[in-house]
């Protein structure tokens, strides 16, 4: 059974043109899925449907085999199960202090105070930002705010984490912290779906890549297969990941063989460097 299934999904913002133009897509359980595509292709709009924040004008979204309903109770259940990290943390964090902001989601779940406090502490310490707990949000850097926004989602202990361009505008140190945490969550059984336009990240991280362009899912599959297709890359305004490009060039000159490595460490090891 798929984690999410989208059938004939169409959506347009009020008085605007259609953003999603009939999306048919199945997202596997247990797979690290990346939705990749150029700016303005509709990735964020697509992902917002997974959390029930946006309601399709036509078509349907299925979560674990059940069609999403948009009544209050069903949405509450869905949003408790599917956490969403927005691209811009300033959109997501709004309370006076970090501690208060992270407690917002668990409080909305109706949990008792001690349990909320335990979850907030755990979320903050798991991201190594417990010392920020009492800081007002406007004194934080972009990277810190991003981690606070993630902590706010983690404190709700979702089954699925949807990350909208999580590495955009982040410095390498914060990217590393964020991706490490995502890996930990994956090991603990949390499903992760991410959107990005970073082809190198998608290639090295994902099990499954969905190329999204002009409101449609153009192709999905194994990163190597997807990124090896010149036609798909051109249609999606993407480029080939650097590791794949280098490996292909080395293979053409007889300096390497076998399937291309997915990360720098394996690349070096395979070349005996």
């Amino acid at each position, binding site marked *: 059974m798929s984690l999410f299934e989208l059938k004939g999904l169409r959506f347009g913002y009020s008085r605007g043109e259609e953003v999603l133009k009939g999306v048919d897509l199945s997202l596997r359980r247990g797979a690290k899925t990346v939705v990749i595509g150029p700016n303005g292709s509709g990735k964020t709009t697509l992902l917002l449907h997974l959390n029930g924040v946006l309601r399709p004008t036509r078509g349907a979204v299925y979560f674990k085999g059940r069609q999403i309903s948009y009544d209050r109770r069903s949405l509450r259940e869905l949003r408790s199960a599917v956490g969403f990290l927005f691209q811009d943390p300033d959109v*997501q964090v709004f309370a006076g202090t970090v501690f208060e902001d992270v407690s917002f989601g668990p409080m909305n779940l109706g949990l008792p105070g001690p349990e909320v406090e335990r979850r907030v502490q755990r979320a903050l310490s798991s991201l190594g930002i417990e010392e920020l707990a009492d800081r007002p949000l406007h004194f934080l850097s972009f990277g810190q705010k991003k981690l606070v926004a993630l902590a706010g989602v983690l404190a709700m202990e979702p089954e699925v984490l949807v990350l909208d361009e999580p590495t955009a505008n982040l410095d390498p140190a914060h990217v590393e912290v964020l991706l490490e945490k995502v890996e930990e969550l994956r090991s603990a059984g949390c499903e992760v779906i991410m959107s990005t336009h970073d082809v190198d990240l998608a290639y090295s991280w994902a099990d499954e890549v969905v190329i999204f362009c002009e409101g449609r899912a153009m192709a999905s599959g194994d990163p190597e297969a997807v990124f090896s297709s010149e036609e798909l890359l051109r249609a999606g305004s993407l480029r080939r990941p650097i590791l794949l490009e280098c490996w292909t060039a080395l293979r053409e000159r007889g300096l390497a063989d076998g399937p291309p490595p997915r990360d720098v460490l394996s690349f070096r090891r395979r070349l005996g460097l």
Partner: protein
Amino acid sequence: MRGLHPGVKAVWSLAMLAAVFAGGPVVQGVVLSVVLLQLLLLSGLSAVTFLGLLAPVLLFGLLGALVVRFSSGVGWWGALSLLARVSSASAVFAFLAANTPFVHLLWLMGRLGVPDLLVEVFELVYRYLFLLSQTVDAVKLAQDSRLGFSSFSCSLRSLSFAVGAMLRKVFLSLREASMALESRNFDGRFAFLTRADFRAEPLLVAALMLPALGCLFLALLLPQG
């Protein structure tokens, strides 16, 4: 001082304000001196920073006192009395503001029974004022980098563009923020868990409250008029 229970600081402020309004210029002068001394000894904030915070209020107070002196029959002593009252009362508020995180004040308001709706509005305004100020700075910088303020007419045109841009941004931000709230199960009420692990060291409380009570006593001895 910032971690001190906000209730203690609120009681201190009320006592000081009562002294300011009950006492004459001498008491007001004493209050101002006490506030400055407590600031230097207890809060660790520099006098320069504090006076910088007070400067606009003092300037308005001075102008007001001069206007009152020359436009009505009040003498120099009356104008000085007005200035002393404005300065000392403002110093009390500035001390409270400089030593109390805003979220502690919100917590206190909640505890004092201020309606949730008002506290939530204050909380949102507090957060979004900073965002608005960041956006204004960014728009201004973007315009300035393209000679948007190179002449008077350019400045006027840039200002009108900035207002339009800000309105658009406010509407977009509103939509995004409401989606972000919904994604975390927002049900119409801003529910937070606020940490209330304030300190109330007896020595600090005594050092703050005893001089305040002294000022209040002095005001009863030397009442206004």
